[in-house]
Every structure is written in C-alpha cells, then in structure tokens.
C-alpha cells in the first residue's frame, strides 16, 4: 500500500495541464481508482498531473438544449446539481448509485469516464443518453459520441496527450422517463449489472427507447434489439418483458467470483425490465 516514487504536479490551468499530459503525464482526477492501484503498485505512473485544482473544468451549464458538464464535477455534484436533477435526471440518479458517499465526494465524472471500468455506473446512463465526450489535447479538441468512446475493458478512444474535459448530455423534454437500476457487487459497490432506460411515450405509444447496459460484459453497450422491440408499443407488461429479454442477446457476458456469465445475462434482463418499467412510469 506504498506507491512507487512519482512526480506530482497540480497545475491551475488547463493549458499547463494539457502540456504536461502531452509530455506523458498521467492525469489524476478524483483518484478513486488510480490511487488504490498505485498503492498496490499495480499502477506506477512516473508523473501525476493532478487536474483537481483546475477551476475551468468545474462547471455545469445549459446551452443549446444540452447540459455541458466539466470533467471535474464530482459524482456528488452530478447527483445533487439542481440543473442535472431537473434536466437530465437519469445522470443524477446514476451518480447517486456510485460507490459510497466518500467516493462520490471525491470521484469525478471525467475521471470515471476516462477510466472506462467495465462495471462503472456512468456508462449505462451515458449510452442511454447518447452523450458526447469532449477530448482536449494541447493542440486539438474533438467531440466523440459515447458509443465510439468506450471501446473495450478500460479502453477508450482517448489518444495519448488527450484529456476528457467535458461530458455533454441532452436536456430531457417532457414525455421522457428515465431510470437506472443496478444490482451491486456487495464488496466493491460496482455494478454486476446496471441498466439505464430512457423512454419517450407520446399519445400512448413509445416513440424513443434507449437502453444502456453496464457490468455485463467487457464494455458498456446499447441494447439495440430491446430498444427496437419497444418502439411503437404501448408498454404493456408483456411488451416490457419481451423487450427486456433481448437486452443480453448476442452479448459475450463476463464472469467473476461474484456472478457467472449466465447469471449476469439473467440479471441484465431482469434489471432491464425494472428500468423500463420505472422509466415508463415516469413518462407521464
């Protein structure tokens, strides 16, 4: 639990941070995953660039029908921000499921997203929200759709020198209901299965269905077949069950001490059913 020697810089501006990251510095956000790994010597970055003091990454604002959330927003910020609670409740609800209060007070949205833990909570919501991730380097900036950002277990489309600086989520219009349902691993608090549902029902018919899933396999994903099965339906119990049953189809589920692949897939369907049901109940 004693880390290797490392250099530590805590720049106050994004410009300096990006320059250091460009030189190979490893960004440190809330440190909720990185620090434990360093203490176990499973990770040994030579240079930590602590981005926690960069005020310009600390914002939550609405613009152009979207919410722009700076990478330094803590999970607690996301969970409790009136703007997010009011205009993108799915993200706030999901943040409230992360770890424990200590983790939520320190861990950040940007850090979690960049880490791409296959059992993290956010990816389910971000997939369902069709979020966009802003990646900034010393020389460029690009915005990537969440589906293109999460590539595999701990693997994202971040290039060397790039930093996640912002997450963009849509402002929910009326008629849309959302829900995040999670089956948690009792030791770590990570999701064994987490399902986020975002459903729009107009005149008694589902017009938009987005279902994001985390924990089941090596990467978060959108359950496209389940989504398609819902569109055009009223949302009866049978229709929900039928759609939820499709949520793990074609997915190569992972397995660990806490849940076999078979159980994960079973839970995915069960938690999809719960998420869809609750989301529909919130469409009114």
């Amino acid at each position, binding site marked *: 639990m004693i880390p290797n020697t490392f250099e530590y810089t805590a720049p106050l501006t994004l410009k300096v941070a990006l320059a250091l990251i460009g030189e190979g510095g490893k960004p440190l956000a809330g440190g909720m995953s990185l620090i434990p790994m360093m203490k176990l010597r*499973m*990770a040994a970055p030579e240079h930590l660039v602590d981005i926690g003091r960069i005020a310009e990454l600390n914002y939550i604002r609405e613009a152009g029908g979207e919410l722009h959330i700076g990478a330094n927003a803590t999970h607690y910020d996301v969970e409790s921000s009136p703007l997010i609670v009011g205009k993108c409740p799915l993200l706030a609800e999901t943040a409230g499921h992360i770890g424990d209060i200590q983790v939520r007070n320190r861990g950040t949205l940007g850090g979690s997203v960049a880490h*791409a833990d296959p059992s993290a909570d956010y990816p389910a919501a971000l997939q369902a929200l069709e979020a966009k991730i802003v990646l900034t380097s010393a020389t460029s900036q690009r915005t990537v759709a969440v589906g293109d950002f999460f590539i595999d*277990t701990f693997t994202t489309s971040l290039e060397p020198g790039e930093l996640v600086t912002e997450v963009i989520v849509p402002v929910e219009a009326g008629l849309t209901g959302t829900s995040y349902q999670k089956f948690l691993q009792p030791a770590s608090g990570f999701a064994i299965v987490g399902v986020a549902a975002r459903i729009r029902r107009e005149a008694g018919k589902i017009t938009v269905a987005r279902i994001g899933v985390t924990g089941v396999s*090596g990467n978060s994903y959108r359950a496209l077949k389940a989504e398609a099965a819902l569109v055009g339906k009223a949302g009866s119990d049978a229709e929900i069950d039928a759609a939820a049953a499709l949520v793990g189809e074609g997915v190569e589920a*992972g397995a660990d*001490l806490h849940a076999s692949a078979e159980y994960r897939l079973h839970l995915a369907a069960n938690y999809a059913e719960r998420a869809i049901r609750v989301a529909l109940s919130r469409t009114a």
Partner: protein
Amino acid sequence: MKIAGVAQLAFAPERAYELMQDPAVLSRAIPGCEALERTGDNEYRMKMKMMLASFSGAFEGKVRLVDPQPPTSFRMVVEGSGKIGFMKGDGVLTLTAKDGGTEVSYEGDAQIGGTMAAVGQRLIDTTARMMIKRFFEKLAAEV
C-alpha cells in the same frame, strides 16, 4: 480459470499455423510483448509490459509451443512473473478450415497469482478476453 473461445482468420489453416509458430509474428501479436527471444526448440523467453488504463506491469517469462500437429493444432504454454504477480496459461489451439479461412478454437486454463490475483478478480475474465481478441486481431492483420 477456464478460457475458451473461437476466432476467425481470413487465411488458410496452413498459413495461420505457420504465422503462429513465427516468433516475429508472435511478438507483434501478443499484447504488450516487448521482446521474444528464442531459447530452444519452440521455446522463447518473453518480456511483456501490460498496460491497461492505469494498470501497468512488467513481466518476464517464457512461451513454449508444444505438441505440434501442423496444421491442425498445437499447445501454447505461457508463463510470466513480475512485481505485481505471476501468470500461467496453458491451452490447445485447434485450427479448422472454414469459409475459405480458418477457425481457431482455443481451450485452456489460466492461473494468476500475487497481488494481481487478489485485487483483480473481477477484471481477469474480461481482460483475458480482450487480450485474446487483440491477439487475433493483430494476427489477422499480418496478411
């Protein structure tokens, strides 16, 4: 831990088999492989650096290719150890012609120890799958 799966390659079993016996190819395809040095018949010393998000670990070990049955099957035994733990993999790869290419099915056992074993349990399965996937992707890119 049991590991099993199937991968598709776009070339014939003979070619696939040949590639998988070629240390130069293996060193490019094994994720994180930094050096693969022949130490005997079908035996190589390997240096590996695993990089996965914030995790990193250097391993030294050996790769052995045994029970060669060209072009249908062989056994691959990989052993490595480093500061964060050690790993051992032992599996049989079977090659069959399919749709003008090759279907490689693999089946074996993987064992890990040390810090990795104790703190990485929930990640071992998905990480192993990803590394195997990368291996075959790299292999596919060889032609």
